[in-house]
């Protein structure tokens, strides 16, 4: 009883703090660096040449607006593996988009180049993990974090590892072994180990959102558990953030509106996106119904679709339920993997995927 009171007292005395950490390329920006030509063009791009992913600007603005309106401490950070030399163009782009942020970090590639550590130019896991952990030091211990990345490199692994390190679920030895397996540069491994030692262990990361820019099958992320949500567009992300209590229904509508007005989306496409994220189990049926009702009234979704379901005989319903129960272990569908995740397995899968990409 006393413990509950202390918790309540803490909640009253300190404003709730929400931290939103964003990756830049392929998450915030629609960066095209699939070919050498596109890669070479990037440093010469002007802020107005850079294109934000559809709906992302409205989403970030909404997150801040909702938090501030509720009297919360809202913090937005960007973390990029791009060199600081293109930082000005990116900062100007964020200013153009009207994005207010609290910090932005770039990767000092020149530093690795000068030291002859060429592998570090392409390997970002050590860098990103170290920066995330450094960033955690700057947050109040009770700060809740939402992380946003994409399916191009290693964001799911980096973010999940970060979440479990901060929560104290990954031991120092385990962390060292996983990073060595990836393989992260030994010096970077020692840096990461040193930084994480002083962190207050809190289960801070609420959700990890992965933008499926490459359309990676969502089933590929099941091993990361329900904390990680793969989404196909920022409307789906907004819908899940509404479920998490970070957005209001009106701000979800703003994201939908920005997609329709700015990116040629139709109410039908948004409806399909909502139905998909609902079927994948990331939002409840009640949330889906509430959102559909509100957004349809705003003409952002078509009227609710009637599913013509015939009444099945009771014995068919019973046999279907038994078959479903027998198919799922412990009688529970979508059983989440236990925490901490099997990072050695995930790291070996990542290595395998990278090798496959190089060979193809």
């Amino acid at each position, binding site marked *: 009883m006393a413990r509950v009171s202390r918790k309540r007292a803490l909640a009253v005395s300190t404003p709730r703090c929400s931290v939103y950490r964003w990756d830049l390329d392929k998450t915030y920006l629609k960066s095209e660096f699939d070919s050498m030509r596109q890669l070479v063009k990037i440093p010469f791009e002007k802020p107005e040449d850079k294109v934000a992913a559809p709906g992302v600007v409205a989403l970030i603005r909404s997150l801040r607006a909702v938090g501030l309106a509720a009297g919360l401490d809202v913090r937005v950070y960007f973390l990029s593996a791009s060199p600081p030399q293109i930082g000005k163009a990116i900062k100007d782009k964020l200013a153009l988009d009207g994005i207010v942020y609290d910090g932005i970090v770039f990767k000092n590639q020149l530093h690795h180049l000068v030291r002859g550590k060429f592998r570090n130019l392409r390997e970002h896991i050590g860098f990103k993990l170290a920066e995330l952990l450094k960033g955690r030091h700057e947050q109040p211990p009770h700060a809740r974090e939402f992380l946003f990345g994409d399916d191009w490199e290693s964001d799911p692994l980096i973010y999940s590892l970060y979440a479990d390190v901060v929560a104290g679920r990954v031991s120092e030895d385990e962390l060292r072994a996983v990073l060595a397996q990836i393989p992260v540069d030994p010096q970077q491994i020692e840096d990461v180990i040193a930084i994480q030692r002083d962190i207050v262990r809190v289960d801070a990361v609420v959700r990890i959102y992965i933008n499926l820019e490459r*359309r*990676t*099958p*969502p*089933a590929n992320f099941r091993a990361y558990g329900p904390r990680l949500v793969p989404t*196909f*567009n920022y409307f*789906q992300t907004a819908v899940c953030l509404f479920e998490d209590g970070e957005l209001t229904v009106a701000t979800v509508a703003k994201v939908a509106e920005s997609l329709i007005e700015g990116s040629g*989306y139709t109410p*039908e*496409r*948004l*409806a*399909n*996106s909502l*139905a*998909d*994220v609902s*079927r*994948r189990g990331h939002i409840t049926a009640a949330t889906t119904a509430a959102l559909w009702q509100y957004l349809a009234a705003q003409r952002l979704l078509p009227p609710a*679709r009637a*599913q*013509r*379901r*015939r009444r*099945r005989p009771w014995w*068919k319903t019973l046999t*279907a339920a038994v078959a*479903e129960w027998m198919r799922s272990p412990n009688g529970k569908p979508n059983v989440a993997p236990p925490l901490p995740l099997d990072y050695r397995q995930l790291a070996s899968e990542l290595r395998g995927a990278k090798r496959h990409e190089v060979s193809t």
Partner: protein
Amino acid sequence: MRAIAVDAMGGDLAPDEVVKGVAAVSLQTNIQCVLVGDERRIQEALERTEYNPEHIDIHAASEVIGMAEEPKEAVRHKRDASILVAAQLVADGRADALVSAGNTGAAVLACARHFKVIPGIRKTALASVYPRQTEYPGQDHLALLLDVGATIRCDALELVQFAIMGSAYAKRVSKVASPRVALLNMGTEPSKGSPELIEAHRTLASMPGLNFIGNIEGNDLVRGKADVIVCEGLVGNVALKLLEGLAEVMVDMAGAAAEESWRWRLGMRMLAGGVERLRELADYTTYGGAPILGFENIFIKAHGRSPARAIANAVKVAAKAVRDGVAEEIATGLAGGR
């Protein structure tokens, strides 16, 4: 265009290959698809593949009609079967066309139950495209044969209507400006064949809007003489199966011959490029499926063993037929022929 309803549970490889095919379409085009069937199994299959959810909806149907089931019985008893629900979606205006790789008889019955027949059409026809020799550069390497099994026996008027429907389909989907239409018969003379064929020949020859070239014989089926070949269902089905069987036997014989002598093996190696081209030409997965013509709505029947590629092409053909107004063209052709 609204959407294409796809029977996700129909076919030997359903739902996985059907879902994969629709997923491929969702990434390549803006065509909206509604997958009809077991929601949980469809979603599971979707999540294992690359797809764009913005172009895919799922509509639940709790029952499936198997490939070996007796169509009439199955349609009567399985009222929530995926093919019936999908046809209902089209009839209700939720979708514009239907694609199924499932039980052909059940699919035709589902369409007959829910779709309206174009006014004036007596019988619907199952059409099939097949590869043939071309006569001039730019000629479509596919010809249309109808009917291939929907109507076993036909009278003269029905054959004439098949000719109009086939010509409209070739005009709109294959983009042949003036498709050459022929009757499949046992001789080229107008007086040859059954009384129905003679009567049909007379009527077709008097229709100014139709490029009717007369009768052709079986050996002309695979040549480039006609773009649309009309016959009754029994003959069409036998002819189509004969063509398929011959192609398979040719490939098997060539393989067996190559095993007998190193000279033949060497020859086969040298011809490998050409053989591969022929194989591609004869590959049914590239054609997408056979349309059932005569309904106000489009129905594309994909092969029962359709892999993802065939399903994807069937969906694209269905979308093309809707976009290009095949049903409207048939109605116009029919009005002109009266």
